[in-house]
């Protein structure tokens, strides 16, 4: 039995790697994508273009505006003189925001009246707008604190001291890079499995496979192993890059991490084979792969929190193996979560994998064309 499976595995590897194009496609793009996406996926603003509209002649407004120039989030690209210039700059996306100090800014500030600083933001991407507003608020608050200290004003009765656990500088890259490990691992398993059975069905060789002495379980194992091995190798490579290139801390144990990776690969390969054995043509296999992969990624909590979703959609995400894998990745990488705290994430992935494999094995024999 082992010999038969071994032969099938060799044949599957040959089918995948014999063709130069498919070899390139399997190995190159995931690594390139890791580099590109690792840098692209961030919510930390950098050099956001803004314009200054300062009607005030005092030193104070200039001091506050200088703080914007010192911030890595913003970069001043224009200085405007009239209100009419604001709209064209923002409409045409030349600047994301305009900071406006009125003519009485310094006078109000020195006179003990609240001086208002107007911030006009382009809300077309409301998340970026909110991030920019938050950064402006930080700058203004720091200015206020310094001002009150220098001028001996009374302090407010209470103030907030913030600390962030697990990610003291709140670098969003630490959040996204482990997520990308998950996304690319899913992509690789889909690449290897989603078309594998569909291709054989379309070319008629799957029927030949079924009449060989191989039992369906053996076919299943033979079809699983290549996806599993390639997925494991690429996942390891991506983890290495995350740690040594992107310098994301890996606090937890490798054993816990690999338990998660293995279970996720099982569920991913299982779903891929299930899709593939359901499809009659490669076109349908590709369609199935997209219909699974796209929601699996968008609803996994990769970019937008699952908590923000309506209850019905949250329930749907329980079927998504990525959801559990992301919690494992982020937990092990950033929080150093121990094995036992992640068991609630492990068993659903195992369950999805077993269910998918059972369906795929059943489809092998019962779906004939």
């Amino acid at each position, binding site marked *: 039995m082992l010999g038969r499976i071994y032969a099938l595995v060799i044949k599957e590897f040959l089918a995948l790697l014999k063709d130069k194009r498919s070899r390139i496609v399997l190995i190159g793009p995931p690594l390139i994508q890791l580099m590109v996406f690792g840098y692209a996926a961030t919510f930390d603003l950098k*050099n956001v273009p803004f314009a200054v509209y300062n009607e005030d002649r005092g030193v104070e407004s200039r001091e506050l505006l200088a703080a914007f120039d010192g911030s890595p989030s913003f970069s001043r690209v224009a200085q405007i003189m009239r209100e009419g210039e604001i709209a064209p700059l923002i409409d*045409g996306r030349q600047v994301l925001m305009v900071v406006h100090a009125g003519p009485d800014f310094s006078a109000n500030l020195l006179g003990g009246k609240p001086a208002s600083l107007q911030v006009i933001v382009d*809300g*077309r991407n409301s998340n970026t707008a909110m991030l920019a507003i938050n950064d402006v608020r930080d700058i203004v608050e720091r200015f206020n604190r310094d001002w*009150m200290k220098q001028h001996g004003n009374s302090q407010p009765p*209470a103030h907030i001291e913030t600390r962030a*656990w697990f990610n003291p500088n709140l670098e969003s890259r630490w959040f996204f890079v482990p997520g990308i490990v998950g996304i690319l691992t899913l992509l690789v398993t889909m690449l290897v499995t989603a078309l594998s059975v569909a291709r054989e069905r379309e070319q008629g060789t799957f029927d030949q496979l079924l009449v060989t002495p191989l039992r369906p379980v053996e076919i299943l194992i033979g079809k699983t192993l290549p996806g599993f091995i390639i997925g494991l190798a690429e996942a390891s490579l991506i983890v290495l890059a995350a740690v040594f290139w992107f310098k994301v801390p890996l606090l937890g144990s490798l054993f816990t991490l690999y338990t998660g990776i293995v279970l996720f690969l099982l569920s991913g390969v299982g779903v891929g084979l299930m899709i593939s054995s359901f499809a009659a043509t490669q076109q349908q296999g590709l*369609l199935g792969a*997209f219909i699974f992969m*796209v929601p699996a990624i968008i609803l996994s909590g990769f970019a937008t929190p699952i908590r923000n979703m309506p209850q019905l959609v949250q329930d749907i995400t329980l079927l998504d193996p990525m959801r559990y894998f992301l919690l494992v990745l982020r937990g092990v990488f950033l929080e150093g979560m121990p094995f036992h705290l992640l068991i609630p994430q492990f068993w659903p992935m195992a369950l999805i994998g077993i269910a998918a494999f059972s369906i795929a094995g059943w489809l092998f024999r019962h779906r004939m064309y």
Partner: protein
Amino acid sequence: MSRDTHAGSSRMRLRGLIRKEFLQIMRDPSSIAIAFLMPVFLLLLFGYGVSLDSEHVPVALVVEQPGVDAAEFAAAFHQSRYFETAVYPSTKDAEQAMMAGRVNAIVVLRQDFAQQLRRKDGAPIQLIVNGVDANTARIVSGYVQGAWGKWLEHYALQRGLQLEVPVQMEQRVWFNSELRSRNFLVPGLVAIIMTLIGALLTAMVMAREWERGTMEALLVTPLSMSEVIIGKLVPYFILGMGGLVLAVGMALFLFEVPLRGSLWVLFAASALFLVTALGMGLLISTVARSQFVAGMVALIATFLPAFLLSGFIFDIGSMPGVVQAITHLIAARYYVAILQTVFLAGNVWSVILPNVLGLVILASVFLGVTWRKSRKRLE
């Protein structure tokens, strides 16, 4: 032969080919499913599912010494719709809750909160956020600041104190004053879904013909290569536009995204984008030669780049220069910019025209390379 009859016979040939493609599409219903069911299904799922508006964030409020002042402060949290507040007696319990992921942040009022309020330096309020999801952590810390500000106003008003705020920030958000994330996510989702549909419809088409040897059969007919490409494009274009109308209709009427630009600009840009997306599919299909490789390339080159590099959710301006340069190769980037502007800002030509130009260039490159590659293979 005069030019007129030549053009006439070309038109007839083309019509024949388009009819053949349509018949083929009708026979395998998966194309129709891709064009009409997929946009509805995905947009429903994502339009409701994807949101960056955090409300009811679970927060642990630790009150070490209950009292009037602490209760007043806690009230600011209980009233806010942004928080789901749970009160804990000790920091240790709250920390355990955060470890287990039950709360996203901890606000601690120390034992001597009431006494310190009356001192000159004021009372420190400790805020611990879970920094794993840095974006949510920032949002939560902003919310806590907001609740603190509310409490401060209330506190000062009750005691007749003068609150001194040197500089007050006044924010005005244009185009989306409530910062409703759905308004920008739904147009972005339309772009991603159309990228998928465009590629899925055509990625296998040419490869299938080459693989089955029917391309050679097509080419011994009087049809020229450009006619073959147009013949492949037109039926899928019509299907894709059908799906697009559905998606835009859902964005407008179901998700109530305001449309401030004009409908015809929206559809003209969408048609152009669809040609680009279909062109990319045809190119993949031509270069890959086999359906198997074409399928793999389509998986890699369409969804994830459109998701991460289009500016749909991550700000392109904040990416490093090299990555920004790469985003110029992604058709969805131009379409997302056009959609967000036409939906939320209006017909701003200084945004629309450069992006239209980008799409035109990409479409010409995709179709041009497809044409060249297909011709060469005959020789």
